[in-house]
């Protein structure tokens, strides 16, 4: 993306809540904006390990869930500000990341993917049956703010800006990673693990770095979700659909690209909201059929997502223009 494009994007994102403030459905649009950003954070976090490192986690919900459950847990049981639980969620996510990554990253990629589903499911069952963690009912946050530290706002707009700040931080971190040794090594691992090893790349260790970074930000996304909605249960926090959402959002926009996840979020969140409004409850059933179909299509025809599609069409157009000039 060019520098001007980046500036325009940043300006648009910063100005968005203000731009829609005048319309009838201002609150709705601002809320959707916040949800788009939250989805982008989750997808960008998945992108680090799934896109850049090429290790496909299909159970990322467990990190999201850890980040969502711990803040509400410390509130519900000990009346602590949910913020206290945010680093705890990250710590729990890192433990899970190492538990899964350490044994599987020395094996072929399938083991890692299988392990992510298995552990995510394991966590979901345990949490869903343990009263201390809310069991099937879930956990709740403070109904009203006791102070700034409860991070409760009436309007979506403050949340919007908090999410925007986190997303900006995440994108910046990803950009830095891409340019660093970690980024190059991950690219090499993805492009050819055997060759990478022969060049001294410590494959297992670097995959773990990527997973831990990804888990940290995914956990943060979960925490932000919990802070905003004030509620979590096994479905909304640990269900497979949470993982699916992250994957399709990143893959549609472009896994392994910097802005692909944000693009995916900007398309999918409004689309999903629209279908939910049109079709109601039955809509969600149809949504996941479509999601499944879209993921298959992406895998089959354009694994690089819309960003890759754009590049391909752009290159084809340039070639046609060149040929026309030559003729």
């Amino acid at each position, binding site marked *: 993306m060019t520098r001007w494009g980046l500036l325009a994007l940043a300006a648009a994102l910063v100005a968005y809540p203000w731009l829609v403030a005048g319309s009838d459905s201002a609150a709705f649009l601002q809320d959707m904006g916040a949800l788009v950003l939250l989805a982008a954070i989750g997808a960008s976090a998945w992108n680090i390990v799934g896109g850049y490192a090429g290790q496909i986690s299909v159970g990322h919900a467990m990190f999201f869930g850890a980040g969502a459950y711990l803040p509400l847990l410390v509130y519900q049981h000990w009346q602590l500000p949910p913020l206290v639980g945010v680093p705890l969620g990250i710590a729990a996510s890192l433990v899970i990341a190492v538990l899964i990554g350490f044994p599987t990253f020395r094996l072929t990629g399938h083991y890692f993917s299988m392990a992510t589903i298995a552990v995510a499911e394991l966590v979901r069952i345990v949490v869903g049956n343990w009263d201390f963690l809310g069991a099937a009912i879930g956990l709740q946050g403070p109904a009203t703010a006791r102070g700034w530290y409860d991070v409760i706002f009436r309007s979506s707009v403050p949340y919007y800006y908090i999410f925007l700040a986190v997303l900006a931080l995440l994108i910046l971190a990803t950009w830095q990673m891409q340019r660093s*040794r970690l980024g*190059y090594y991950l690219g*090499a691992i993805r492009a*050819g693990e*055997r060759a990478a*090893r*022969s*060049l*001294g790349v410590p494959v297992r260790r670097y995959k773990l770095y990527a997973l831990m970074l990804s888990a940290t930000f995914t956990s943060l996304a979960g925490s932000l979700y919990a802070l905003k909605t004030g509620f979590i249960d096994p479905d909304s926090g640990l269900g497979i659909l949470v993982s699916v959402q992250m994957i399709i959002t990143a893959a549609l926009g472009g896994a392994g690209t910097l802005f692909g996840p944000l693009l995916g979020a900007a398309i999918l969140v409004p689309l999903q909201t629209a279908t939910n409004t049109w079709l109601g409850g039955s809509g969600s059933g149809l949504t996941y059929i479509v999601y499944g179909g879209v993921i298959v299509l992406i895998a089959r025809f354009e694994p690089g997502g819309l960003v890759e599609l754009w590049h391909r069409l752009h290159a084809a157009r340039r070639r046609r223009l060149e040929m026309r000039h030559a003729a």
Partner: protein
Amino acid sequence: MLLSAEKVAKHFGSFRAVAGADLAVEEGEIVGLIGPNGAGKSTFFNCIAGDAAPTSGRIVFAGVDVTAAPAERHARLGIGRTFQVPATFEDMTILDNVMVGAFLRHKHRGEARDRALAVLELTGLKEQARQRARSLGTPGRKRLEIARVLATGPRLMLLDEALAGLTPGEVQRAIELVRAIHAQGVTLVIVEHIMEVILTLTRRVLVFNQGHVIASGKPQDVVKDPAVIEAYLGRGHAQAKGSG
């Protein structure tokens, strides 16, 4: 002694790819490894490079026992290798390919980049630094692999048929490059089928057949050895050649 491989064997089930091979390389040498296809040369290379764990035997490099060590460790200690079928990172630029190598000894992007550019200069790829690796033909890819490995700062380089499939002109240029690398202090072990390369570059040659070394010595002597001729061409030819 820089590298010492003793009685290295590699079995795949009942198939003995390498059936007990020895190799001793002093620092600064260029040693050749020849033999018919399927003789076990590449597998032997893989064992030395750490790509495959030997079934038995011992490999010591610069005083460190690396027999069971993974490939990453071998590379860190200073063993670099190229692949028989080039394994360049296709979608990355040529510069980025080499930077991956450079990052081994240079933690920061700026230094790695400088080192990569220097290596590209040496290997004559600097002009194409920004192109994708996939835009190169096979000779270019082989050159890129050499550049990439060189960027890791190896003490010992294992070249696996790095000159195969090149035109005579390209072979000459490649020989120059290998000489330049050697001049920088890198020890080399090269697997080759092109006799000219072996005779020009190496001072010592080992001949592999059916998993072990059947002859070793100066290249001029080895090519006349009846056992070697038999290995390549069959019994009849060795007898026809007489005592050479």
